[in-house]
């Protein structure tokens, strides 16, 4: 029983990370129907940005004060990931907006590989796994029989909070309305005075900011970081976005928690153990796509070509 609860707690923490990334996937897909394969890399780059701030920017005396280090690292991670996402949108995706559907997908793969390699080559020592500092309070919080690190709780809280904020932003503000309009019909939105280019860039920026935050906090939680971290987590996040119904923000976050639980509980209880945990996520993905392609919270399927 304790194991079960503990694994549920671990699953929720993983789910929170995935959820923060999945929001970016689902928003970008909702607006320009692009699977931004490189979004996982944005998460990884954000984590490295946070690490760089800790290593090269923070003076020795402040590295231990979490109320200084944490915000600065988050800002560093967000700045790096947002910059990368904007460059990526401008140079890799925008020129291809009217190209055949396969073209931007392949560009996204290219961006993903190039980003991984760029970090591996140019970030000091990044060809090996890096240890990531835990600047936030280094204690285990006990809830009943379950122990969660404080960073884990912070991740869950952040994911839910930011998820709600983005949801509010998209539904209540003027720019959010422009986003929804662009996702429904870009040309009509343009006629109504919306600048789709700006909306699309903003979408990338919001997604990247969340991914950057997720990167720094996840790094802090697991205390290790490698350049391959983005790919797998990115695929998980995409799975979550599809599971929740792509284009739906609450769906993405809830889907992410489900994926996190599947990964942890599958690794614990299904045959094969943790070595196959990864496989179960993909099995869930295939089943969802085959039997409910619109996802749990998605609108019923229009023609997706």
């Amino acid at each position: 029983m304790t194991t079960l609860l503990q694994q549920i707690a671990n699953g929720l923490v993983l789910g929170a990370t995935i959820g923060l990334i999945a929001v970016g996937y689902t928003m970008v897909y909702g607006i320009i129907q692009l699977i931004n394969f490189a979004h996982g890399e944005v998460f990884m780059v954000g984590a490295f940005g946070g690490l760089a701030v800790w290593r090269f920017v923070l003076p020795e005396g402040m590295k231990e004060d979490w109320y200084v280090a944490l915000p600065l690292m988050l800002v560093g991670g967000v700045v790096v990931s947002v910059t990368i996402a904007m460059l990526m949108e401008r140079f890799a995706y925008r020129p291809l907006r009217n190209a055949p559907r396969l073209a931007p997908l392949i560009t996204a793969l290219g961006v993903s590989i190039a980003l991984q390699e760029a970090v591996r080559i140019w970030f000091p020592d990044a060809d090996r796994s890096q240890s990531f500092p835990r600047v936030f309070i280094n204690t285990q919080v006990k809830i009943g029989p379950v122990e969660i690190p404080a960073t884990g709780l912070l991740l869950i809280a952040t994911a839910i909070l930011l998820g709600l904020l983005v949801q509010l932003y998209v539904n209540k503000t003027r720019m959010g309305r422009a986003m929804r309009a662009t996702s429904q019909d870009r040309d009509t939105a343009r006629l109504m005075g919306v600048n789709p280019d700006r909306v699309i860039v903003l979408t990338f920026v919001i997604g990247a900011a969340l991914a950057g935050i997720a990167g720094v906090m996840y790094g802090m939680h697991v205390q290790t970081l490698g350049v391959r971290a983005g790919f797998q987590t990115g695929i998980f996040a995409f799975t979550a976005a599809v599971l929740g119904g792509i284009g739906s923000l609450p769906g993405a976050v809830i889907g992410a928690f489900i994926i996190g639980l599947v990964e942890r509980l599958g690794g614990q209880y299904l045959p094969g153990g943790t070595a196959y945990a990864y496989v179960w996520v993909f099995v869930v993905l295939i089943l969802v796509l085959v039997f409910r392609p619109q996802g749990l919270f998605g609108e019923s399927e229009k023609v997706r070509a």
Partner: protein
Amino acid sequence: MSRLSSLVPAALGRPLSAVGSVLLLVAAMLPWATFLLNDGAYPDKATLQFFDAPFALTGYRWHVLLFGVAALVITFVPLPGKGRALRALGFGGLAISVISAGFILSEGGGLGAITAADGATAFGSIVGILGGVALVLGGSAIGIGDIPHWPDSPFGLTGWAQRLLAWAVLIVSFVALLWLVSETLTAGGTSGVSNPYAGPIFLAFLGMAVGVLAALHGIGFTRWLTSLSERHRAFSIIVLVLCAAALPFTDAGTQYWMTVAGTIGIYAATAIGLNVVVGLAGLLDLGYVAFMGIGAFVAANLSGSAASKLGITLPFPIAAVIAAVIVGIIGAIVGSPTLRVRGDYLAIVTLAFGEIFSKSAQNNIGDLTGGANAISNIPPIAVGDLGFNEPITLLGTKLPPGVLYYFLITLLVGLVMAVFANLKNSRMGRAWIAIREDEDVARAMGIKTGQAKILAFLVGATLAGLAGAVFAHKLGTASYDAYSFLQSVTLLAAVILGGMGSIPGAVLGASLLFVLPEKLREFDNYRLLFFGLALILIMRFRPQGMVPDRIRRAEFAGETAEGKPIEEVQEQLVVEHELDVPKGGKA
């Protein structure tokens, strides 16, 4: 490119081209480096003063000289497609100069190495770059017009005379191609490690080869050759196979290059298989290499290797057929979600499948894959007592080990090409293309889209399984990490780089993507970075690929290479297809 041609007024085109050609000639004769580089001269005559040894030009400077002469001749000879040819030569010369200059610059430690230092001058590379730029601008100013169309029967020849001429041209061209391939493989040393300058020499050679091919394309030669080989298809296939079989007898006939060429052949065959799924049917498959992997593991388990837990030993042909059948069935199963999901979602399903395969193989599922230990010591394919990994003596020439695999794989590639070509022109092939263009319309036209898509997966997977079975025996080991996501992406990149739906494209793409890493070992650290950037740039500037299929070319460009509007070409294609049907037998 119209932006380039508007830079220079048309009247200046010819003088500028002449200047560019002369600059290239001069560049070839100037010294290129002020001193000998640490690892010896790059290449051997890099610091040569022309007047010391006027006829000793070799390597890339010889190519620059030839480019200069050719450009000078083309500038003053009336020739259709002159602008394109000059521009191509200019780009070729520019590429050679930039690569060599960059290399000498970085190895020689700064600008001094290619300008003047310690009383020695070496402006060769700079003059070469200037010449290349002048040629590109001059050629563009002369005009990038239509690619000229050569008559099908030159000099009014008919009957046997025409046929003999066509055969002669085909033989000469294919032999030239063989020479080019052999030279490309051996440029900069035969094993890639012996020569410290192998990388840049090879790149410069590649620049030369691409320049020559582009110039030939510009004057309409390659298109004429294509139409010739299409009209004499049987003959050209025979010559092509003979040329491929002749490769071991050239300079490239070393054990190292035979091994590499065999591996490239395997990937080329797999890329053609992927081309069925992606290029013809338009179904993006991101887990394709898993099929190859399953084929390899099936063959490995039936090979009687000690590492296999099954303990079954079957002769290779039977094992290969079993592997192909099993993989085909799995392909149909993996393809079945295509009935419900489309486009990007299908890509994700296949990616998920690929990852499930890779992870299961890594964990030694059912004791079938050996996990991290792999299944090793797979015996080589053997006929009688002769193992395929042994050297043989043929026609009085001693051929290196691995050459038998090379022959086998050449046959495999030929087989896969034949399957692909026939499928493409069949009723099913046209159905696939229709689905690729618009699934709903295809369905409305009475195509059973579900069946057709599953069949595409089945055919593609079978071909991959066959290739995997051969690969397992060739390598002697079947390991999960040879069939990872990156391999899938590389194969996909090969198909797209070459041009979707086109056979020469897939072969060319696979060769490039798998030869370049062999050749550029010193850049190994940057290989994947370049690969990722190349994917972005290709999609940005040439999404139709290097050798595009003519239908796809029209689709991507909105017009054809001749600049005809797309509607006109489509009409022409329709007419051609109608004519094709009765000729092609049952079709």
